[in-house]
């Protein structure tokens, strides 16, 4: 009898997962700059990508710039929050930042990951938008405005470092797990039973929302070079927005 219930529960869970994924039909990220509305000029896009790559390598902060035409049926802020969590911008320390431009509504929304709320309180985000972004936007220069915002955010985050901490913790944790597995296999061998194969070590954890597998194994370490997808970062509606 309980087996039947378990199956029902499983099917229920499956249906829930399916319906959620159908509802959240977000585009997949193509890089740090996701110009879906096609309003960013090439030069600015290249500069933003360069800055974002630097942010990730030096500060461990993941920045995503997204432009869309409309956020319907969600509000721009609601869209930003959902998209942030769907993509998982910011990695294990939730050190992510999403700048969302909705062209039809003429609105910009910045979503700040949990990990950055301390350095980027909403008031500061609003001030950055007023000073570095909106002046360009009111002239219709979206690319320059987003570049200005990226520069300003990078300046604020210049002294932050989310990478080292993560790496240390991660190294320690994976080392402990590694030792436990080694001991377990050693013990099972001694008892003459068949231990699990060596493949166990090669599989890294699966991160929902990761688009492409990361280069390094064993978790979202930030390697140098190109865009390796976001994964794991969360936010809860922090940040600020402006209509222009």
């Amino acid at each position, binding site marked *: *009898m*309980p087996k039947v*219930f*378990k199956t029902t*529960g499983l099917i229920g869970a499956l249906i829930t997962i399916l319906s959620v994924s159908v509802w959240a039909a977000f585009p997949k990220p193509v890089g740090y700059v996701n110009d879906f509305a096609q309003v960013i000029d090439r030069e600015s896009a290249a500069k933003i990508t360069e800055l974002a790559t630097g942010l990730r390598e030096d500060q461990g902060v993941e920045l995503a710039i997204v432009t869309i035409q409309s956020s319907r049926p969600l509000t721009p*802020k*609601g869209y930003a*929050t959902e998209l942030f969590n769907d993509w998982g911008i910011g990695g294990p320390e939730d050190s992510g930042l999403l700048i969302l431009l909705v062209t039809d509504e003429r609105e910009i929304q910045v979503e700040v990951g949990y990990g950055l709320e301390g350095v980027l*309180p*909403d*008031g*500061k*985000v*609003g*001030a950055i938008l*007023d000073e570095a972004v*909106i002046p360009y936007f009111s002239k219709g220069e979206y690319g320059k405005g987003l570049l200005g915002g990226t520069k300003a955010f990078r300046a604020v985050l210049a002294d932050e470092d989310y990478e080292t901490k993560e790496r240390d913790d991660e190294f320690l944790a994976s080392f402990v797990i590694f030792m436990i597995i080694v001991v377990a296999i050693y013990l099972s061998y001694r008892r003459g039973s068949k231990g699990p194969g060596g493949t166990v070590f090669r599989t890294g954890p699966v991160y929902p929302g990761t688009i492409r597998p990361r280069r390094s194994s064993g978790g979202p370490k930030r390697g140098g070079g190109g865009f390796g997808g976001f994964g794991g970062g969360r936010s*809860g*509606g*922090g*940040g*600020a*927005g*402006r*209509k*222009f």
Partner: protein
Amino acid sequence: MKKGWIIAGIIILVLAIGIASQYNNLVNLETNVDARWAQVENQLQRRADLIPNLVNTVKGYASHEEGVFTEIAAARSRLLGAGDPSARMEANNSLDMALGRLLALAENYPELKADTSFVRLQDELAGTENRIAVERMRYNDSVENWNRTIKRFPTVIVAGLFSKTSRPFFEAAESAREVPKVEF
């Protein structure tokens, strides 16, 4: 005869395992609801902490609008004093309304609207409203899941056995649907 006992034993064992797994599932769901509510409380508290600063800034420009200030102070202390979730939700809704009036008031004072610290506070407040909205949604999702689970067969039996009851949703007040926005 012996066979009968063994079968009865197996049936009891299977039932016990079934109840145990259902119960554990319920514990998980209920803990989730509580955790979500704690997040809502965090954000409500955060907003309550912002309000004195906001009120003081507005007072600097519009000191004679006493009515709105007392209303906010009353709603705020009601929120902080409210014990159980449903009382807090109610107090929060009246605070929402009072805050809406305070922000609408700013429209009449151009210097206040241009004040940098007021703009900052308004951003903080809007951000907190957004956070409350997000946490409220997550809380309501967990409540929905919980309420549905404890009403469904066979969980309803286990839920009744351990007297688990449904939880209230956090409905937003009509006036609070519109999150205050800073426009230029």
